């Protein structure tokens, strides 16, 4: 729609100036009127540019590729919006892409829905949108549809983002938590706890300086390496985000009615994260990650699969951390560094720091 054909509401003149950076998000940006249109045309469309989006239709009409499709959605409410190693924009892309990757799918399309708080600086929104775009382009995955809503000041915390994604599952791949088998080996693609501790050190005004960076990363490439090496031998993939490795493995143990036995010594924890966890009395097994995954694989292929992970920079610290057992079905048991054993239960409530 050219400026000349834009309807003029009220008596005011139409201002064709681009959205200035010092401006903030107004309720009218979500009202469906002219400001909404300008937000889409001047900020969102240029960033996410692709033919499907340019049609400005109510939804994307897509040509389905042969094979089975994976479909996933995730919402992002991280605070602060920007953190060392990422921001809510890149996280929103990585999160959904990783969920698709855990299904064994190559990501194809994303939707992006933004819920903006009135008063959010447009410059902030611009940064987030640029980050969404960069992360999507790097994968690559197309953002083919989206939505923007604005809520009143105080009714959200800056920006919330929902992304949904569609990917095509590689032929011959069938991943599900129920496929964990007794004797399988548990691989972990990288060191734990970097994301959760990086966010925590920013958010809780803990007063200690860390060089911790979130591990936020797209994992589809690393997954592809595994699936190219031995597609049949990979039984379950899971990214241990909220609730950490402990919750992820407990869920799989329940779904497959198997037990897990982990070796504490073998579990890599990110430099800095381990020290921060010690100080705060937190267990790295429960801390959130955004750039590692668990692979439960057939024992005979475990070495080859581990080597495949380690050949990738993202997986260089990958380790075999445990096995699937027939004993104690539904439970995760850890052999501690000193040779004792303990149960690793689901997280109950939030992890809290020690107080004395």
């Amino acid at each position, binding site marked *: 729609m050219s400026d000349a054909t834009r309807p003029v509401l009220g008596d005011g003149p139409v201002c064709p100036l681009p959205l200035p950076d010092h401006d903030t998000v107004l309720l009218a940006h979500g009202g469906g009127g002219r400001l909404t249109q300008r937000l889409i045309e001047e900020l969102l469309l240029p960033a996410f540019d692709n033919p499907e989006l340019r049609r400005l239709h109510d939804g994307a009409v897509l040509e389905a590729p042969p094979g089975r499709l994976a479909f996933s959605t995730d919402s992002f409410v991280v605070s602060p919006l920007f953190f060392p190693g990422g921001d809510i924009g890149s996280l929103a892309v990585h999160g959904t892409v990783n969920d698709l990757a855990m299904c064994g799918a190559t990501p194809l399309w994303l939707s992006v829905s933004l819920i903006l708080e009135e008063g959010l600086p447009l410059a902030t929104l611009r940064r987030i949108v640029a980050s969404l775009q960069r992360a999507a382009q790097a994968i690559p995955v197309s953002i083919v549809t989206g939505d923007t809503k604005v809520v009143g000041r105080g009714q959200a915390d800056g920006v919330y983002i929902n992304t949904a994604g569609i990917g095509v599952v590689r032929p011959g791949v069938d991943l599900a938590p129920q496929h964990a088998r007794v004797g399988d080996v548990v691989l972990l693609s990288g060191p734990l706890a970097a994301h959760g501790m990086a966010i925590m050190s920013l958010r809780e005004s803990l007063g200690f300086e860390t060089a911790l960076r979130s591990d936020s990363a797209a994992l589809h490439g690393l997954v592809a390496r595994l699936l190219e090496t031995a597609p049949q031998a990979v039984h379950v993939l899971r990214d241990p985000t909220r609730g950490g490795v402990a919750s992820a493995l407990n869920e799989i143990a329940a779904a497959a009615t198997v037990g897990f036995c982990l070796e504490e010594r073998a579990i890599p924890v990110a430099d800095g994260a381990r020290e921060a966890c010690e100080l705060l009395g937190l267990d790295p097994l429960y801390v959130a990650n955004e750039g590692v995954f668990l692979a439960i694989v057939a024992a005979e292929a475990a070495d080859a699969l581990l080597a495949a992970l380690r050949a990738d920079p993202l997986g260089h610290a990958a380790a075999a951390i445990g096995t699937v057992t027939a004993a104690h079905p539904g439970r995760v048991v850890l052999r501690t560094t000193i040779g004792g*054993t303990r149960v690793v239960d689901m997280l109950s409530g939030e992890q*809290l720091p020690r*107080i004395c």
Partner: protein
Amino acid sequence: MIVRYVDEYRQGEQVQSWLDAIAAALTRPMTLMEVCGGQTHTFLRFGLDALLPEALTLVHGPGCPVCVTPIELIDHALAIAAQPGLLLASFGDMLRVPGTRDDLRSLKARGADVRIVYSPLDAVRLAQQHPDRQVVFFGVGFETTAPAHALTVLQAHQAGLSNFSLLSALVLVPPAIATLLADPANRVEAFLAAGHVCAVMGYGQYEPLAARYRVPIVVTGFEPLDLLQGIHCAVRALAAGHSGVENQYRRAVQREGNPAAQQALKRVFEVCDRPWRGLGVLPASGLRLREAWRTYDAAERFPLAEPIAREHPECLAGEVLRGLRKPPACPAFGAACTPEHPLGAPMVSSEGACAAYYRYRSVT
């Protein structure tokens, strides 16, 4: 990467040699108590208790300040937090401890401004940031954290903050040990005292206790090797019929403690009688603000209208805290009482014995 003062105290080979030394020194069945909940958690988190000789019984002590905070004080904090416009700050664990009818976390969900802080001094900062609001810090802890609580009052005074006050749930360890020892039902023969408490207060206070009740008391740290060395000291002393205080935690504790911290503590607080959840009123076991600082006492600034304190009838926290019952022996454990729906504080606190068993031993 090695985490100093942590990894060297978690070495599997050394653990085994200390276990062997304990087994060799154990001349008969013995019962020991680790006083501090942090030590209880180390035993269970590393599976250390199961590696100890069977003839050695460990009893978990009352050393969890959250757990022993009396229900009337939780109710008082809830009543204060419910006042419109007021901001109440506390440590995370305190938010989930059930009062008679409610807990702070639920109150927060219903609109009260309850904040989690990691240091008592953060609460003073909150008072500075909100000069038009009353800010109350619900402080809890043993001698370890008491000096930092004293500093809140000194800092608030220095900054001329009239909107800051402290609700003190601070308690002292030696009176609790004395109470346990004086109990005819006591079966504990030796104690592992909490190293960090002694880092502040020193261990001179334990000498009269050890002499009076003829027990070994070993000042002990929190890592697996610390605990094994502490147990070894205690077992050797019992085998030889010795009593007295020994210091395993020499890297952090000196006999005289930390004089600067003690001075801050003495300047602001005085000793008072205090009810302990599960143990009753223990004489001279709590800390309250001295007369000169009473204006910063939240209990006086916001008096509780009508106390309604009532413990949950199914909760046997008292017996757990006195070492008379292990958590799994409580009928409510893991059934009516879980970390999501705790009946008592020991299921909530990161130092609580019930939480340690639930988390590391699990329930079928």
